[in-house]
Every structure is written in structure tokens, then in C-alpha cells.
């Protein structure tokens, strides 16, 4: 009887370590909603201007390298897959596989940013930047297109960097066994963030690269 009571107390204490995974997830989603509306506002701006200057947008988008855009899309889709797989691996207590997949995700983030660097360098090299020489020969629609292009892909690029940092921190938690197969909500939240970055790119790609 006594022993049973002790066991019960012990069990009770273990059960009392407060952890609210559902609340954590909900909090992450609420944050993601603010992100969706942040980018949503920019998409509204884009739509309004595209509606006002259809020819300017088509002319400006002709300078875009669709191939690099498509490659970057594939890179982000694959990185989303690797995050999802990393969670599945940790759920099955495959820590090594999980960390490898997360490193692969970070690597994809780097590859994406390197492509973006080459793209932006190319445009800046052609004189396309705020008050750049190329803007003198452009219509208002083209100038607005490039303004939105740099703002939206730039903000998205920042999110890629934040996402990579987030996953890096999560990796350090996993190495120190602070995130385990039974306690992985933080990893899930990092995954949610990364998928959001992917989601935004899914819309940015056709809107900036595939205009004809």
C-alpha cells in the first residue's frame, strides 16, 4: 500500500511537468497568421499595381531567369520534404537521420540564397536598383515591378535566413537531447516556419517569373 502510494506520488510529479504542446503549436500558428497577413499585404499591393500596369509587368518580367526561379522552387520544395522527414525520423527515435535531414535543409537554404545572390547581382549589375541608371529607360510599371520584386523576394530571403537559424538552434537542442522522440514540438514549430517560407515562395515564383 505504502509502496503504491509512493509510486502514485512519483507518477504525479512526473505528470506535473508542465508542457502544453497543443498550446505551443497554436501559438506558432498565430504567429504564422501574422506572417501570412504581412506578405498578404504585399501581395495585395502587387495585385493592385499589376492590375494598373499590365504591360510594364510583362516587360519587366521578361528579364527574369525562369530557370533559376524554377531551380529555387525545387530546392525549397525539397527542403520542406527534408524537414517533414526529419520530424518523422525523430518520432521513430532515429536521431542521426533526423539531424542529417535538418543539416540538409539548412544546406538547401544556403543553395537558395546563393542562387538569389547571383540573380540580384545580375540585376544590380544591369543598373536595376533604387535610383539606378537602368530605371531612366523604364516605364512606371517596370520600375514598380522591380521595386516589388526586390522588396518581396528580399523579405522572403530574410525569412529563409531566420528559418535556417531557427533550424540550427533546434539542431543544438536535438544534439543535447532537449528535443526527443517524445518531446519534439519545438522541432515541429521550426518545421511549420520553414513550410511557411516554402508556401510564400510557391506564390512568389509564378507571380514574378511566369508572367507572359
Amino acid at each position, binding site marked *: 500500500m505504502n509502496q503504491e502510494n509512493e509510486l502514485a506520488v512519483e507518477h504525479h510529479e512526473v505528470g506535473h511537468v508542465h508542457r502544453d504542446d*497543443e498550446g505551443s*503549436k*497554436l501559438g506558432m*500558428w*498565430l504567429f504564422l*497568421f501574422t506572417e*501570412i*497577413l504581412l506578405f*498578404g*499585404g504585399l501581395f*495585395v499591393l502587387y*495585385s*493592385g499595381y499589376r*492590375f*494598373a500596369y499590365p504591360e510594364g509587368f510583362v516587360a519587366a518580367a521578361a528579364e527574369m531567369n*525562369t530557370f533559376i526561379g*524554377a531551380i529555387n*522552387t*525545387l530546392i525549397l*520544395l*525539397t527542403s*520542406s*520534404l*527534408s*524537414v*517533414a*522527414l526529419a520530424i*518523422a*525520423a525523430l*518520432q*521513430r527515435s*532515429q536521431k542521426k*537521420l533526423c539531424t*542529417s*535531414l535538418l543539416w*540538409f535543409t539548412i544546406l538547401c537554404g544556403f543553395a537558395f540564397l546563393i542562387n538569389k545572390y547571383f540573380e540580384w547581382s545580375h540585376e544590380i549589375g544591369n543598373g536595376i536598383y533604387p535610383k539606378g541608371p537602368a530605371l531612366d529607360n523604364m516605364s512606371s510599371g517596370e520600375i514598380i515591378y522591380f521595386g516589388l520584386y526586390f522588396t518581396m523576394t528580399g523579405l522572403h530571403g530574410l525569412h529563409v535566413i531566420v528559418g535556417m537559424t531557427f533550424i540550427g538552434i533546434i539542431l543544438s537542442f536535438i544534439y543535447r537531447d532537449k528535443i526527443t522522440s517524445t518531446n519534439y514540438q519545438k522541432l*515541429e514549430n521550426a*518545421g*511549420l516556419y520553414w*513550410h511557411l517560407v*516554402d*508556401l510564400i515562395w*510557391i*506564390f512568389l*515564383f*509564378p*507571380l514574378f*517569373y*511566369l*508572367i*507572359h
Partner: protein
Amino acid sequence: MAEQTAEHALEHYAPEHSAPAEQHAAGAGHAHMQGYGTYFMVWLGLVAFTAVTVTIAGLNLGSVTLITALVIASVKSFLVITYFMHVKNDSAILKVFIGICLLVFVIIMVLTFSDLSFR
């Protein structure tokens, strides 16, 4: 390379547990485990849709391009949200929240365009 490791692990995983991953998910204590295979299929779908959207854009179909691009992007988003972000297995309240957030965005879009169109 990482995909190979994952597939390798999948092979390893199967003999250890007699039940497939999806069935395992139904077990108590393991919250919504999705199999590796599901994720690969979703990824394949996403890649295929990307190929379709690039191809259609290359055909110069005019105004149809934008509509198809947006429809395909929406389908891809649905796949990412449902499977990668695990909303399929999430609580009803979260689904309602996501619905409200998207609804707010649609309302903003509709109001903006009703303004732009009737100026």
C-alpha cells in the same frame, strides 16, 4: 543524398515493426505519425505541379496563364499545409483558425479589387 538515407531508413524501419507506419500512428501515445512514403508522394506531386506551371507559362496563353498559375499555386499550398504542416491531423479549432485567416485575406483582396475595378 538525404533522400537515399531516408529511403534506406524506411527499409530498416519496416522489418523492426511489423505494422506499417500509418497503422502505427493509430496506436496510443504516438501523436499522428505519418509515413515517409506519404511525404515522398506529396513532394513528387509538388514537383510535378511546378513542372506543369512552368510549362503552361511557356505556352503564352495570355490571361489564362495567371489563372492557372494561381490555381496550381493554391493546390500546392493545400498539399504543403495539409501534409507537410500536418493540419490533416490537427484539431478542429486550428482548422477553423486557418480558415478565418484565409477568409480575412480573401476579403481584403475582394475589397481592394472592387475598389480598383470601379474607379
